[in-house]
């Protein structure tokens, strides 16, 4: 009986299956016929995955009992010797398998059609939904809407009413959970939580509705529409409440346990050791013995700086739903002597109602400069300030930049006297064409001198004391991009290289050479002392992967490493000081998952940002090891 009803349901829904397959076919054709229109393809891909497929699920579910309503065939079916629960389950199973067939075909098509899997992956909603791929999001929504639609479909023969009611109920429940519950999760997680925390509700709410539907369906009088609704509500309300409670417990447990991954917040090298912050802890990897050590614990150690044998980091703590404290902590690089430098809750503290967003430790480790801005009801004006390593001598000065800027420290002048501060316009300011600015900040007097405007933020490089500040700027005259050096004392600038793009640049540890990758093909090393590019190499058909080449110095400056795709796989290509290739290590994961690279002696650390893992390459042995 189950099988008969199951097969009948498949037959009844063949037209919808064909509609879904036709939709997928049209999408594939559009993808193949629009190779140069990436924007259109991206929109189409998103629409198919998170709108069309879930809509197919909704239509399948909403029409679950359409055949039974027609000609009052429900009376025929219910007069047969078959349990109502069998009828419900057989139909639901059939609809699920039909949807699974559609989703499976879509997944196969994405895999098989050249370029399609990368397009879908590129739209991977990691930033939107905290780790959910676009396809998994689409598949989950498809199942959820099928289940909600099917749960309601026995209530009325008007399918349009079922479709709209399903969408309305699902949206109300999901967004209700989002608005009511999500803010409470942040204190549990110790960090902002993403929409992925809604996943338990997206799973449990349809299950609750389905159970209510099954229970009501088995008991109700099908000839009385009002009674069907009453019976459904009788089971639905407590089951939905249970689903909401269970969903809240589930998402809270996941948030408290650290959610999906053990995010890695920062990665830096200092004095033959690599430091990084994971969720709740700060770690140090020592190249000398190859060991990973936990050197500090913190609620959420977002960002740190190292200098003079000390480390400074911000420790975020979500105290209540709306109250976040961000305290500056300092400790020795072995983790000893950790102590807060400020107390955000003290009203006389410049941090009160503000967050230190950027900070930098002096080269001698004796003081810290910081940039802070207001939160909540406090004005969002920026402050620059300094504090001594023992927590004394706190000073702050207003910074004369618009609220639409974000501020980062990017180094020190000679002797560690003045800090270099970068201001980058964001949001509306960026849209209005506001320029970036580089300042020189005197922590003693608060004086702030503009050094340069309209240069790119040096996101890939980090140095302490900088006599020559490397910068990238765009020349509108010939649409070229320039890598240049600026003397931070005199302000004099000179050109290192000019090309269509400056893709990457990195100072050697001793600051004597600047390696660069320009125009997506030219690798070079510049010597400030000689004032020229001392070695250059053209790399034909070079593919660094989606995240760029990540050029780094290795072996203490004796060579370089760069990411490259060869034969369809990512590699770490090793070069000597003359830019001659000395070897190539295949990456242990997809090249587009390789984020930060840092070199420590004969090792390279690579962050897999997708999986939140840290991998160590032993350049001498040619091996990889996952250390975190």
């Amino acid at each position, binding site marked *: 009986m189950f099988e008969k009803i199951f097969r009948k349901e498949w037959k009844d829904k063949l037209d919808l299956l064909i509609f879904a397959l036709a939709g997928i076919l049209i999408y594939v054709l559009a993808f193949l016929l629009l190779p140069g229109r990436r924007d259109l393809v991206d929109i189409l891909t998103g629409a198919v995955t998170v709108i069309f497929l879930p809509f197919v699920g909704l239509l399948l579910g909403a029409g679950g009992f359409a055949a039974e309503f027609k000609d009052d065939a429900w009376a025929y079916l219910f007069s047969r010797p078959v349990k109502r629960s069998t009828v419900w389950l057989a139909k639901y199973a059939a609809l699920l398998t039909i949807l699974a067939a559609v989703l499976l075909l879509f997944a196969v098509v994405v895999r098989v059609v050249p370029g399609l899997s990368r397009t879908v992956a590129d739209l991977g909603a990691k930033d939107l939904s905290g780790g959910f791929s676009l396809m998994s999001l689409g598949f989950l929504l498809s199942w959820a809407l099928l289940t909600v639609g099917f749960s309601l479909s026995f209530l009325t023969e008007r399918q349009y009413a079922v479709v709209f009611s399903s969408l309305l109920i699902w949206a109300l429940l999901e967004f209700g959970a989002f608005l009511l519950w999500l803010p409470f999760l942040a204190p549990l997680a110790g960090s902002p939580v993403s929409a992925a925390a809604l996943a338990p509700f997206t799973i449990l709410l349809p299950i609750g509705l389905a159970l209510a539907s099954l229970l009501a369906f088995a*008991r109700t009088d099908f000839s009385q529409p009002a009674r069907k609704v009453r019976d459904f509500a009788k089971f639905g309300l407590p089951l939905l409440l249970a689903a909401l409670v269970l969903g809240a417990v589930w998402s809270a447990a996941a948030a408290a346990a650290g959610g999906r991954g053990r995010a890695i917040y920062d990665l830096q090298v200092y004095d033959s050791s690599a430091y990084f912050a994971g969720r709740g802890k700060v770690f140090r990897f020592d190249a000398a013995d190859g060991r990973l050590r936990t050197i500090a614990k913190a609620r959420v150690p977002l960002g740190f700086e190292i200098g003079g044998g000390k480390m400074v980091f911000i420790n975020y703590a979500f105290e209540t739903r709306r109250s976040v404290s961000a305290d500056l902590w300092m400790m020795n690089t072995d983790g000893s002597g950790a102590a807060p430098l400020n107390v955000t809750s003290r009203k006389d503290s410049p941090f009160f109602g503000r967050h230190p967003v950027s900070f930098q430790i002096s080269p001698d480790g004796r003081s810290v400069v910081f940039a802070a801005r207001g939160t909540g009801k406090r004005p969002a004006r920026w402050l620059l300030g300094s504090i001594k390593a023992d927590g004394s001598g706190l000073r702050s000065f207003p910074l004369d930049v618009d609220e639409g800027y974000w501020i980062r420290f990017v180094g020190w002048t000679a002797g560690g006297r003045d800090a270099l501060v970068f201001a980058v316009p964001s949001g509306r300011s960026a849209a209005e064409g506001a320029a970036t600015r580089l300042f020189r900040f005197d922590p003693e007097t608060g004086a702030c001198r503009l050094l340069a405007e309209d240069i790119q933020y040096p996101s890939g490089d980090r140095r302490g004391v900088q006599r020559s500040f490397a910068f990238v700027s765009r020349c509108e005259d010939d649409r070229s991009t320039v890598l240049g050096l600026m003397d931070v004392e005199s302000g004099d600038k000179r050109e290192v290289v000019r090309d269509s793009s400056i893709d990457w640049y990195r100072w050697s540890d001793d600051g004597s050479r600047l390696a660069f990758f320009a125009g997506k093909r030219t690798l070079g090393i510049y010597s400030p002392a000689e004032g020229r590019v001392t070695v250059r190499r053209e790399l034909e058909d070079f593919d660094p992967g989606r995240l760029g080449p990540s050029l780094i110095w290795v072996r203490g400056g004796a060579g370089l490493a760069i990411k490259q795709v060869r034969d369809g796989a990512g590699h770490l290509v090793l070069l000597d000081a003359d830019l001659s290739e000395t070897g190539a290590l295949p990456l242990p994961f997809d090249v587009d998952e390789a984020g930060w690279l840092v070199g420590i002696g004969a090792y390279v650390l690579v962050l897999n940002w997708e999986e939140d893992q840290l991998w160590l390459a032993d350049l001498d042995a040619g091996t990889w090891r996952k250390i975190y």
Partner: protein
Amino acid sequence: MSEVLRVANLAKSFGRKKVFEGLSLSLAKGKVHGLLGRNGEGKTTLIRIITGVIPADRGELFFDGRAIRFGDAAYKRAIGYIPEDPFFFGGMRVGELLDFNAAFYPRWDGPRAEDYLRVFGLDRDVRVRALSRGLKLKLGFAAALAARPGLLVLDDPTSGIDVPTRQDFLRDIIRELADAGTTVLFATHMVHELERIVEHLFILHGGRLVLDEDYEAVRERHDERMAAGGEAGPGGLEDIFRSFVA
């Protein structure tokens, strides 16, 4: 004689409209039972409760001495049901519907079903929605009878059918079933259709069972009363029915 089905203290309402309350009856094995009542008295409702299509608000149902809960399915294997309005899946073909139906009944007699198709002139490949009302009725009979039911329930199946067709059915098929020992419950508002076949009579009126008796006894008593009163009338079942529902 043993009873096949017993209904005890059944009650059913649709919203505020009470259909019946405290309704009790039993069906004796092998007899043809007639259920009479005007339109809207609750005949279809009672039959739908018996066949498990809708639940009663209160009351109990016993089949072959076993209490039946709403939702029990196994007892329906012994019941054949022919409704007033054909209620099949219109998109199915005749052959598909019979094959679909066969899955529900362990005693399904396939050759018998094919015989009925041939006798009734039904084409296996025709869609159900393309059949006339009369052919749908015949299909209903084929589907019900091929399951070899112990109890056949008919809910005014011949209304809207032409007279010769109705008479063929009532005379040939139901009598044949009854002779073979099948219990029959025939609900109708067309009194004269039952006259030649009914053995036990129920009359439903005003939400109650106003008559629950063997037809012979009722007929004799009615005739005696008519004769004693010197009354002249059409006589027969119709007269009896009028006397209870007037």
